[in-house]
Every structure is written in C-alpha cells, then in structure tokens.
C-alpha cells in the first residue's frame, strides 16, 4: 500500500487487556484498548553499512527517494505493498523494525531490473533487494524457502563432485525440507521409468545412484571453489557482525575456558 494510504493505527499496535481493573472499575476487553506509540525513537546506524557490505547493496547510500524504482517496478504493479523506494529509505535511515514488518514480501522481487535502468543515481535497487533478502536470511529473520534449500543441495553437489546426480539431489532436498519420499507422484514416475526406459539407460541410472559420478581431476577446482565460498561467507558474516554474535552466544551458553576463547 502506498505510504500516504497507510493507516496511522496499525493492528499490531493495538493492545487489549482481558483482565484489567482500574480504580476498582473493571475495564476488561475492548474497554481497555490502547494504541501503542508509533514514534521512531532511534536510528540503527549500522544498517546501511550492513546492506552495503552484501553483494548488490553497495550503492544504497546514493538514494534520494525519487521513486523511479517503485514506479517502474513489475511487482509493485501487482502488489502495491511491494515498494523498493520505501525499503531503501528504511535501510538508509536504519529503521530496522519497519523493515521486519515487510520481511515476507521483500523477497518477491523478480529481478526484472527495470528499476536498475530507471534509477537516476545508479543505486541498483534490484541489487539492494537481493542484498536485503540475503540480510533477512543471514540475520535469521526468515526461514530458508524450499527453493533456497534446493539451491543449496544442488550447489553442494556441484562443488563436491563437479556434477550432480538427480536422485541424490531429490533425496537430500526431500530430507532437508522434511518431506517424505513416499509421494504418490514420485512413485508413479519411478514405476513408469522402469517400464519404459531402455535397459541400458536404466543400468546407467542405477549405477549412478550407487556410485556418485564425479568430474575427473575435480579436486583442484573443488578446493578453489570452497575457499572462495568460505571467504565470501566469512566476509558477509563479519560485515553483519554475526561472528561476534555467535561468539557471544557461545560464551553465554557453555563453559568455554579463557584459553580457548583467546585462540578463536
């Protein structure tokens, strides 16, 4: 919804007490409905730098709020709540709580890049949306979507072996998303494959399932890819202060000796 049409009173800011007695008078239920303050009392100054540290978010600080991105947005045309200009502003100013309200629609960006070409300041709003989605995920504000899990399973196999084996991808994807392999459509597909595929191909498929295929001489490439991925992940976690958070959580959680702490 465009900003100017938003209600000043938000449902989540209404509180009602089931049991409330004031000066001996029972005002339980809707008699005790209160509106919580909407006032923004501080800025999170780290927010802009965190987004700028993620791929795509580098130019977020350039935005001057002209609205060209939202005007050109494919998704906004369908869902008026999808407003990149608004989120870029919230990132810049550091209104984290406002962003979290929209965490379930931010990822709807289809990366058509119309905004990229409309933006007069080269903010690359599409990149910012990507960085923002990534930020929400890294900070643990959103659960990974099934497609994100699939991407993980898929790329893990490519990194390991240089190629994938479909059966294995399916198995791991189903396992990680907590789905049973006992799906009627899957069983039907297997049955038809057994009935119709040539014996030679079936044998190949069966062998591949037993012995994971790998690209020959892959170990060098694997090492390089793993190093790069590790490096990138480390960089992002550091930019978002996640390592410090994890360390702090470890300290709070368990008996780690001073010596171990110093080494880490």
């Amino acid at each position, binding site marked *: 919804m465009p900003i100017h049409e938003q209600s000043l009173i938000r449902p989540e800011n209404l509180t009602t007490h089931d049991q409330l007695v004031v000066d001996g008078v029972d005002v339980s239920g809707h008699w005790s409905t209160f509106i919580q303050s909407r006032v923004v009392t501080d800025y999170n100054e780290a927010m*802009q730098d965190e987004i700028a540290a993620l791929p795509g978010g580098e130019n977020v600080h350039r935005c001057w*709020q002209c609205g060209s991105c939202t005007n050109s947005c494919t998704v906004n045309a369908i869902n008026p709540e999808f407003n990149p200009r608004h989120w870029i502003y919230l990132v810049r*100013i550091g*209104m984290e709580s406002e962003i979290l309200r929209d965490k379930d629609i931010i990822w709807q960006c289809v990366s058509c890049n119309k905004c990229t070409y409309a933006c007069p300041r080269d903010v690359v709003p599409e990149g910012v949306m990507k960085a923002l989605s990534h930020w929400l995920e890294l900070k643990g504000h959103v659960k990974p979507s099934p497609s994100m899990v699939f991407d993980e399973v898929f790329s893990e196999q490519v990194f390991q072996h240089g190629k994938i084996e479909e059966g294995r991808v399916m198995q791991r994807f189903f396992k990680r998303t907590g789905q049973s392999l006992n799906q009627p459509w899957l069983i039907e597909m297997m049955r038809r494959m057994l009935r119709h595929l040539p014996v030679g191909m079936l044998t190949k498929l069966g062998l591949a399932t037993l012995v994971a295929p790998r690209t020959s001489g892959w170990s060098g490439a694997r090492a390089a890819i793993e190093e790069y991925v590790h490096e990138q992940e480390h960089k992002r976690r550091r930019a978002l202060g996640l390592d410090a958070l994890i360390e702090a959580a470890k300290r709070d959680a368990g008996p780690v000796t001073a010596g171990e702490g110093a080494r880490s």
Partner: protein
Amino acid sequence: MNKPILIVGGGPAGLAAAHALARVGQNSVVVEKEDRLGGAPILSGYAKLVPSGEWARDAIGGMVDRVRNDPLVDVQTSARVESFAGQPGAFSARLSNGASVDAAAAILCTGFTHFDSVNKPEWGFGTFPDVVTTTQVEQMISSGKGVRCPSDGRKPKRVAILLCVGSRDRQIGREWCSKICCTVSANMAMEIREELPDCHVYIYYMDIRTYGLYETRYYWRSQEEFKVKYIKARIAEVTSNGEQLVVKGEDTLVKRPITIPFDMVVHAIGMDPNVDNKTIASTFGIDLERHGYVARGNAYGNTAETSRAGVFVAGAACGPETIDDSIAQGHAAALAALGLLQPARARA
C-alpha cells in the same frame, strides 16, 4: 584625478568593485562600518568556501590585501555614510567619521545580515548550548579547534543539520530561499565527516537546492562519498532529555513521528536583508523590494542599477547571493558606474 566612486561596504562585492575600478585607473572610496574589510566571510570567520575549497582567510583575505595596497582605493573603516545628495557625476556624501566625499557615483555593496536563530525558539538555539548555527560551526572549523559540543567540549557522535532556518517561513516573515544554505550544509557535513569519521551527520530538509554544478560536487558527493543522510522532515522542536538533545518531527517519507537523540544540532541559518537597509534606503533615496532587500532598477538591461540614477548595487544587498556571484556583480556594478561617467570614451 577623477572624482572617486563611492563604494559602500567592504565585503566580496565591494572589494571586487574597488579592484575592478582601480584596474582601469578609476579611484574609489570604500566605506566600511566595521573596523576591518572582508565582509561576512572574514568577519564571521568562514572556513572553506564553496566552490573552490579555499580557506576564506586566503581567498577573501587576498582580495582585502589587494585593495588595501592599492593607491587608487581610499579605505574608510569604522565609518558609515550619513548623508548623500546630488546628481549622477556630482554626488556629495558625508561620513560618520566627519569626512566628506565628492563622488561621481555610488555602488551599494551593503550585503546581508545572518538570520538570528533566537527568532525560532522552538529549535532550541539560546536554550541549549549544543544547538549552534552554521556560522558557529564555520568558526569551529576555521579556528582549527574542530567540531565540538559547546556544553562540554566532547566530539559529537551524531549531528543534525536543520535546513531553512530563517528561510521559506511565512511565520517569521521570511518567504525567500536563502539559496546557499543547502550547499553550505552539504559542504559542512562532509567537513564534519572528514574530521570525525565516527560521527553520523543527518540533514533534515524540505527540499534540497544545491543548484547548478553544486549538485554533484556537494549533494551527490556528500551522499556517495561521505554517507551523509538526508531526511525529508521539517523539525517541530528541539528539546533535551538531560543528556542529549532530542529532535522531534515527522519523517514524511514513512509518515512516522520521530524523536531522535543528537549530540549537536546545527541551524543552517539564512540570509536576512541587512538590518540597516531601511536607513540605507532613506540615506541614498532608493527603493527596497518587498522582502526588504535593495530593489534592482532593471532586471536585464543593466542589472547593477537601483531606482536612483548613479546609485548602483551589487551582491547580497539585493537578495541572498553566493560569494562568487557577489564578486561578479561587483565587477558588473563597477563597469556600470564607469559607463555612466565616461560615455564619450566608451564611444570613441
């Protein structure tokens, strides 16, 4: 020697006019009410100037020296013009120091007066010591002491610059845009970020008017290189929570009230007409325009004219003006006065 040209005011416009006249052999008398030449950039202790980044004391100080050392310029400081009469080519003026000047023409380079922030009490100037003006921050920078909170000398961690203080405000009878404050504020924000990289600077604006080439050099650069944050909000009031200043207003882009703590609040003060303009107008027999600045007699044909023949005007006397444009207008007024005196030579 020719009759001199009377130049009233020794700021950038007056210094430029005197120098320009001397360059073509015309003598002048510069009357300055303060005890020093240089005008606002020197008297108010400005730091680095837009657009060159030169220090005011070097750039304008150089113009002062040039005029001071010129035998064709007679400088009268701590003096005002008390009376002025006559015709073009034959004016006579009496000064407050007793001197009298027979002048062929006069150029008013009487400048402006900084807006006094006390007139906007809701923004805390005069109540809280850490609410300061752009002029004060200029002085902090130009004195070499650095940007510090006046209350306890600490380095601010968060600074708010409020634009349009004393500009575009019908409530206090200032309907004009002071033209330079956006650019000055963007420049100042960058200077603060340069000196104190851990200090976050927020600029609260109604519109950003870093016009012309200042757009990229100041507005864009302050955002792109110095990460200065611009928030579209007209501040309602500046108060204190006992430890920090609290800026209240509405963030118009998210339609949310804000009450944000700050260490220092800077008023980007505007340019008022010179407080003496009514006296100046009656002394010189010229008209003021409706805001109280000196009225130009001609918008295009000869922009240096006032409503009275032989009396010319340049710089911020006729409206908010930049230093470099004031200098250009000083040159233009010098040429206009010279053209009035020597029409025959101009034709020859």
